[in-house]
């Protein structure tokens, strides 16, 4: 196995650098940028480093516990970095900087909504998740319920979330890499998919965690550096910055006033619910709670993670405001040099243009490499969560009823990773020209309405039975998907119908109550013997959730 990892690592590295070399220099579509050598060299260093880690990790990935949870031996600080890394995708860096650049206050508001879920996860969930779960969150929902049926449901909705999130990331990755590195779209998608498969297949959670930690460190330091350099143009005075920015921005004095983004209260609350409880239902985030040794470390992880996220969002806010002047007033960054016209490379390039303006090609290269590393790390986390739903939940627990050997289970998870990788590459290429923004919304919507209600009820409500969990889980999943499909972003924008059947853009406010209500009604009306014994089993589960007695412990190496 070791030698194989070596070979794959070397081949992967050389193939990627060779692909980079083969990239067309300047010609090609308008969107494609000149091959960015600083970025490619720095990115190759990152890939070499992460391959080294994967090689090291593969020697410590022997049991299923190693593969899914790094043996439970990650510290709170490390896990906090990794969670922050999982949570801050390239879309966060590029999309939110662009949102602040274009809409000022509305961008900042969006960031608070992304952040506010963390304290709730800490207060309500972190401890119970750690005390009850082992490898996947389905361990918790099926703790006292029917293993086969409830796990199957949890695995299906995990896979739905993972697939939509993965497609959105892949399409974003292809477009971003085309822009930043001057690489061909499909080569970029294949490169990301192959590297992801190598990390996860050979290094499991150990490699995925360390790739995530390094990337989070790079993202935080690169972002901070760009922010400081840009902010120094305004003598670090927020007052001066705002004064100058409002003077030139199209919104004028309205720049720091709430605008149209969340003007409709129903959409605003629905978005808030979706982001808050969607975060609490994302399988790759939930999985991270099982990588630490106990509830103490789980709590610390969330505290560190939310600290990094909050800090970075405020860095992005200042970066976006600085960009209004540094980028928005510089003709070099606009097509045909027309200020206020179309930004070169499109709206998502604001953060990159800012890096170039304040730190030259070197900082631009660094930030581009960080963005690529970010995508790789996030897709790896997703692939691992998807693979564990297939191998641990479906294969080992449902199909083999817990009788599979560890070796067989790991083998299945590796095959699942490769299958997911191939599917992600194919779908990523197929969806190149599609607007995939709705897919992230769909992933959060399904996480909030499909995963979260059953998970929280299974931990807090004694009365939940298998029947209620199944109806609630499937009900939430189906209604979240239906609301998104009938909303404007799919029904009109993708399927080209005239008017949306569902008038709001966010499903959570409507799909979540459906899930809770179905779970309640069908649990309450469940008079079966099994239902009664499931309710009786809550008492022991409750003591374990509260004290951690009997919880899975870290394995020693």
């Amino acid at each position, binding site marked *: 196995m070791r030698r194989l990892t070596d070979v794959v690592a070397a081949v992967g590295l050389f193939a990627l650098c060779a692909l980079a070399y083969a990239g067309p220099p300047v010609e090609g579509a308008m969107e494609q940028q000149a091959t960015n050598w600083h970025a490619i060299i720095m990115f190759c260093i990152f890939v070499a480093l992460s391959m080294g880690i994967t090689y090291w990790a593969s020697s410590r990935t022997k049991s299923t516990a190693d593969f899914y949870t790094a043996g439970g031996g990650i510290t709170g600080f490390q896990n906090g970095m990794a969670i922050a890394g999982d949570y801050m995708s390239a879309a966060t860096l590029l999309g939110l900087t662009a949102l602040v650049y274009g809409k000022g206050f509305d961008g900042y508001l969006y960031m608070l909504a992304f952040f506010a879920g963390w304290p709730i996860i800490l*207060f309500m969930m972190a401890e119970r998740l750690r005390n009850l779960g082992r490898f996947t969150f389905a361990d918790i929902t099926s703790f006292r319920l029917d293993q086969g049926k409830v796990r199957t449901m949890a695995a299906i909705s995990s896979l739905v979330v993972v697939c939509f999130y993965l497609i959105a990331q892949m399409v974003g990755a292809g477009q971003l890499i085309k822009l930043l590195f001057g690489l061909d779209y499909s080569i970029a998608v294949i490169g990301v998919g192959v590297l992801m498969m190598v990390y996860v297949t050979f290094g499991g959670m150990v490699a995925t965690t360390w790739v995530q930690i390094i990337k989070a460190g790079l993202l935080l330091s690169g972002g901070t550096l760009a922010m400081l350099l840009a902010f120094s143009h305004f003598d670090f005075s927020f007052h001066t910055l705002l004064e100058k920015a409002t003077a030139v921005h199209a919104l004028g004095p309205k720049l720091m006033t709430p605008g149209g983004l969340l003007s409709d*209260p129903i959409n605003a609350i629905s978005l808030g619910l979706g982001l808050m409880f969607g975060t609490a239902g994302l399988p790759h985030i939930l999985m991270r709670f099982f990588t630490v040794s106990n509830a103490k470390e789980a709590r610390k992880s969330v505290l560190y993670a939310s600290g990094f996220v909050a800090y970075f*969002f405020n860095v992005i806010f200042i970066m976006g405001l600085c960009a209004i002047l540094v980028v928005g007033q510089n003709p070099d960054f606009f097509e045909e040099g027309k200020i206020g016209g179309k930004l070169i490379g499109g709206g998502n390039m604001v953060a990159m243009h800012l890096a170039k303006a304040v730190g030259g090609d070197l900082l631009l290269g660094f930030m581009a490499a960080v963005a690529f590393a970010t995508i790789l790390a996030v897709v790896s986390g997703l692939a691992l969560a998807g693979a564990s739903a297939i191998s641990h939940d479906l294969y080992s627990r449902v199909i083999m009823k817990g009788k599979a050997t560890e070796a067989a289970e790991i083998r299945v998870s590796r095959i699942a990773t490769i299958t997911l990788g191939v599917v992600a590459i194919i779908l990523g290429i197929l969806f190149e020209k599609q607007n995939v923004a709705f897919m992230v919304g769909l992933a959060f919507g399904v996480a909030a309405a499909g995963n979260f209600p059953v998970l929280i009820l299974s931990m807090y409500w004694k009365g939940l039975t298998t029947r209620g969990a199944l109806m609630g889980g499937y009900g939430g999943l189906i209604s979240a998907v239906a609301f998104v499909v009938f909303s404007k972003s799919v029904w009109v924008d993708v399927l080209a119908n005239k008017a949306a059947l569902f008038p709001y853009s966010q499903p959570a406010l409507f799909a979540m109550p459906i899930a809770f209500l179905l779970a309640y009604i069908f649990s309450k009306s469940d008079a079966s013997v099994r239902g009664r014994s499931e309710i009786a089993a809550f008492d022991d589960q409750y003591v374990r959730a509260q004290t951690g007695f009997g919880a899975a412990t870290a394995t020693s190496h």
Partner: protein
Amino acid sequence: MSSAMYERMRTNPKFQELVATRGRFAWTLSIVVLVLFYGFVLAVAYAPSTLGQPVSDGAMLTIGVAVEAFLFILFWVLSAVYVRRANGEFDALTQEVIKQAQKENK
């Protein structure tokens, strides 16, 4: 075996105390966060121009930005307060409950 252990822990008054105190603490903090966050979201929807007012005459900083920056800090500080108490006081109590149950087991 473990079911008997769980039974002993459940009947320990200290367990009841742990669950009640920690539960009350966690719910209080959660409600504070939820009320402030959704209150702010509703303020954005219903009173955007108020949030757009400067914090004082001649200031560029608006009330909305100031409140939001404050919420970022407050939510994190509340998290730190919770972790401090849960990892200290509550975990000590938890260990006591487990130890007592193990002692009775012998």
